[in-house]
Structures are given as structure tokens and as C-alpha cells.
């Protein structure tokens, strides 16, 4: 039983429930009550054992705690009215609402609470759309989503994004204040949904990529990011379906297709000795077939709308890789075409680089080198290890070992993860070998 605990989800569920009852202006209080419930569990369970229904225990303790906190705020305001300016508006009706939570004062409210009909999924969905509200800066949306929808701690968020704890804490405080000042409501309407869907998709995409990119840092936290992004994507596709327009639903499916197809390769990406493996070197039997199947299903469903999002195109590229039984079977002309579309929609240096790689697979390494050279002057790319590593690989294919070695050295001078660094060092050694490769 103790092994079935999932405090991250319990935390998120409590915060969502309390936020629904009290309103988003009391989000901080909801978090505090949820945190206090976990403290109580840590203090009591070692002595009393884990309760049979741990989640229900936690939510009851948190509700009672929220009521205490509200009463305390109310008393403060009564004692010294000026305190009210510094606290979220604490009107008597909020205390009445809080009393409903606890139940005993109002039997009908207590009964209503016992018979709560809102399924937790809807609460979670509303919390996602709250955390991803477009009035918040993009990085605040990401941090707040991880905190209140995924149940991550401040330290874990900071770790995942290579930021300082206090910077993340500040970001969260500011975000909650902005939501409060804007008096954002909890109940999700179709209009809210339409208005905020792009932002929600963007946050999930960012979470997934951050986890997938595996920069420096804890691999466990990183795979958590991918898993959470997919979980929330599933939630969006299911609980969110009734809000969605055809095109909105198509975009959700496209993002899910992309995430499943990419995640399928995770088990094959790192080889022995923790060296990052290139697509060409991966053991494709390790790719997760069920994940690929789900990805392709979502890609089918994504075709229902009449708009094409970047998620559609990127999922299309991922699908080309996923369905190729061997590296040699990859449909590079199709991939190069998709990168042309992607570059038109999202003209970033990184997309341009990937397009250059696709061109090299279709038209040969020299064409690829020319395409990379054409974009190498970009200041962002100049600091990106993959640009230099790509130059190194293509130079090696044209047998220009000197240029290849320069490329790998330049790549090693850029910021990269440990597995990536080990890979680059290995390639540098390959390039520096004087004898030509067999075959």
C-alpha cells in the first residue's frame, strides 16, 4: 500500500480541489494547506501506519487546514483592518465557503461535499488552463504548471531548468499575484479554452523538449518531465474534448503524436558507457513499439482539422523515423520536404540546421555542408554544439579529417550534457585517427 503512494498527484489533486472551492485568488492558501497535509502525514504515518485510503485522508486533513488558515486570516483582518490590504480579499463569504469545506457547520454543504460530482480530471484540466493563462510570462506558466499541476517542488523545478531555487520561488509568487490581481476564475468555459489552448500546448511542448533534450542534470527528473507532458496531453485529449473545436482537437492530437513518437526512442538513445547514440547507431528493437503505435494513432486523429500546426509537421518527421525499420530505410526526401514546411512556419536556426542535415541525406554530404555553411553565421547556432558536430560529421563523410576534428573540438567547447560530451570526444578520436576507416 505504501508503495502505491503518489504524493505529487495527491498534492495536485488537493490544490485543485481547494482552488475550485475557494477560487484561484486563494491558490497560495490551497498550496499551503496541501503542504501541511503532507507534513501531517510524515509526522503521523510512521507511528500509526499508512491509512487505508491515503488520498482521502490527505484531502480531508488539507480541507480542515484550509479552514484554519482562512479563519486565522479573517481574525487578523478583524483585529487590524489594514492587514486586509496585504492579504487576498477575505470576505465573510470566503469564510462561509471554507466552513462548507469542513462541513459540520452546515449539514447540507457537508453533504454536497461528500457527494462531490466534479471528476478530478476536470479540476486538473481547469488548473492547467489557469497555470497557462496568457497574462503570465511563458516561463512562469511552465513553472506554475509544474508546481500546481504536476506537484513538483521548487527545488525540482529549479533543477530541471538549471535555475536558482529563489528565482523559481519568486517567479511563482509573482505569477500567483498576477492571477489574483486579474481576478481569474476557476471554471473553464469554451471561450477560455479557445483563448488559452495555444499557451497550454506550448507549455506541454516545452516541458517535453526540456525533458527530452537531456541537458546537464538529473536524468530522473528529466524523464519525469516527458512523462508529465504526455500525461497532461492525454488529459487534454480526453477531459478537454468537449471544449475543443475540430482544429483545436487536431492540434492536441498532433502534439501527442509528436511526444509519443519521440518518447518511443528514449530507451535506445543512450548506449553502454552512457554515450549518446545517434539515430543511425540506435538499436531500433529497443524503440517502444506501443508508444510508436499510439503516436501514429494520434497522427491519424490529427488529420481531422483543416489547419497545419508545427506539431503536425514535427510529428510527421518523427513518424518518418519511427516507421523506418533500418536507418537506411529512412524516407529522407519526405523529411527534407517536411523541414521545408517547418522552416516556413518556424524560421529558427535550429530548424534550419535540421533541414541542412536532411538535405545532406538526400543530396550528399557536400550539399549538406553547403547548407550548414549558409547558416553557420547565426550567433545562436555558433554556441550550439550540434552545429559544429554536424559540420564534423559531414566533413568526415567527405574524408576531410582536419575539418572534422575542428568541428568536434568546436562542439566540445559549447555547452552540452555528459552523454553528449562523451559522444563528441569519441568522434574527435575517430577523426584524429590517421588511417582511413575500413570499408
Amino acid at each position, binding site marked *: 500500500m*505504501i*508503495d502505491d*503512494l*503518489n*504524493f*505529487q498527484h*495527491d*498534492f495536485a489533486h488537493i490544490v485543485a480541489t481547494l482552488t475550485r472551492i475557494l477560487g484561484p485568488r486563494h491558490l497560495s492558501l490551497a498550496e499551503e494547506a496541501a*503542504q501541511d497535509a*503532507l*507534513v501531517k*502525514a*510524515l*509526522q*503521523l*504515518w*510512521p*507511528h*500509526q501506519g*499508512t491509512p487505508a485510503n491515503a488520498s482521502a485522508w490527505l484531502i480531508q486533513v488539507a480541507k480542515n487546514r484550509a479552514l484554519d488558515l482562512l479563519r486565522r486570516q479573517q481574525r487578523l483582518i478583524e483585529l487590524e483592518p489594514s492587514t486586509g490590504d496585504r492579504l487576498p480579499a477575505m470576505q465573510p463569504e470566503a469564510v462561509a465557503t471554507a466552513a462548507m469545506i469542513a462541513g459540520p457547520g452546515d449539514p447540507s454543504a457537508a453533504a454536497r461535499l461528500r457527494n462531490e460530482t466534479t471528476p478530478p480530471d476536470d479540476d486538473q484540466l481547469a488548473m492547467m488552463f489557469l497555470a497557462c493563462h496568457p497574462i503570465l510570462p511563458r516561463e512562469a506558466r511552465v513553472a506554475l504548471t509544474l508546481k500546481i499541476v504536476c*506537484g*513538483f*517542488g*521548487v*527545488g*525540482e523545478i529549479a533543477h530541471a531548468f538549471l535555475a536558482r531555487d529563489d528565482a523559481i520561488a519568486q517567479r511563482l509568487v509573482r505569477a500567483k499575484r498576477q492571477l489574483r490581481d486579474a481576478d481569474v476564475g476557476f471554471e473553464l468555459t469554451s471561450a477560455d479554452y479557445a483563448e488559452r489552448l495555444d499557451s497550454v500546448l506550448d507549455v506541454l511542448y516545452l516541458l517535453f523538449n526540456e525533458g527530452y533534450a537531456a541537458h546537464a542534470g538529473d536524468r530522473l527528473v528529466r524523464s519525469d518531465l516527458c512523462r508529465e507532458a504526455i500525461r497532461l496531453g492525454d488529459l487534454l485529449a480526453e477531459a478537454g474534448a468537449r471544449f475543443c473545436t475540430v482544429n483545436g482537437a487536431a492540434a492536441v492530437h498532433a502534439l501527442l503524436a509528436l511526444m509519443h513518437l519521440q518518447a518511443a526512442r528514449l530507451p535506445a538513445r543512450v548506449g553502454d558507457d552512457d554515450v549518446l547514440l545517434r539515430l543511425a547507431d540506435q538499436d531500433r528493437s529497443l524503440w517502444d513499439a506501443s508508444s510508436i503505435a499510439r503516436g501514429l494513432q494520434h497522427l491519424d486523429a490529427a488529420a481531422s482539422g483543416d489547419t497545419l500546426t508545427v506539431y503536425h509537421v514535427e510529428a510527421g518527421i518523427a513518424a518518418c523515423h519511427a516507421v523506418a525499420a533500418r536507418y537506411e530505410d529512412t524516407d529522407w526526401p519526405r523529411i527534407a520536404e517536411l523541414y521545408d514546411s517547418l522552416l516556413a512556419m518556424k524560421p529558427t536556426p535550429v530548424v534550419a540546421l535540421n533541414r541542412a542535415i536532411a538535405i545532406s541525406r538526400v543530396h550528399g554530404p557536400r550539399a549538406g555542408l553547403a547548407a550548414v555553411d549558409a547558416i553557420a553565421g547565426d550567433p545562436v547556432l555558433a554556441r550550439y554544439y550540434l552545429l559544429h558536430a554536424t559540420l564534423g560529421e559531414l566533413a568526415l563523410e567527405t574524408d576531410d579529417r582536419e575539418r572534422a576534428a575542428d568541428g568536434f573540438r568546436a562542439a566540445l567547447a559549447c555547452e552540452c550534457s555528459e552523454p553528449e560530451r562523451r559522444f563528441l570526444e569519441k568522434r574527435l578520436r575517430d577523426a584524429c585517427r590517421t588511417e582511413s576507416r575500413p570499408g
Partner: protein
Amino acid sequence: MPKYTLMLREDGTAFAGLSPADFQAIIQRYGAWRDELQRAGRFAGGHKLRDGAGRVMRRNSSKVVVTDGPFTEGKEVIGGLFVIEAASYDEAVKIANDCPHLDYGSIEVREVEVTRP
């Protein structure tokens, strides 16, 4: 076998930085720690003491004075206790060393005295 009490002290601020995953990990380690002691027949009970002030009683010349306390500001108070069986202080300390409480508080280990006639 001699009994030892593990008095669990904490200052109430130690939980501030813990994430839900941290709480879960500590509770699961507690479960494992207790299970192992119970299997070995070394676990002899435990109590969580209620947070907040209790009562401190003192005889003051002729009458007993009852005050609220101990107060918790800024110092560690006993939040709970376990009783274990161990062959020696060394073994008791070894058992306490694996107690997850050390992640957020301190433990005072004291042998229960039994004087045999």
C-alpha cells in the same frame, strides 16, 4: 533484551523545503525501516506527540504551578518517540542511524533502565 527510546526532535521548520516527492520518499523509507525492525522483533512501539504547547507542571513551594509549554520557538522539541530493542548502545545507534527522521530532525537515544535485584 534492553530497550531504548528514540526521542525524535524537530524544530518545525525542517519541512519547509520538502517537495511532495521528498515527503513520499521519506514516508516510504519509514515504512521499510519499521517493517524491518518488526520482522526482527525489535520494534516495541511508538507515539506521535500532538503539536503545540502541552502543559509543564512544577511544584512551587506549596502549590503546583501549571503552565503552557514547552514552547517551540526556535528550538527543537520532542515530536514523537519510538521504543526499540537492541543488544547495546552501539546497536541502538546503528538502528537509529537508518531512521528517516534524521533527514529533518535529531534523535536522542536513551536506554531504558531496568535494575535487576
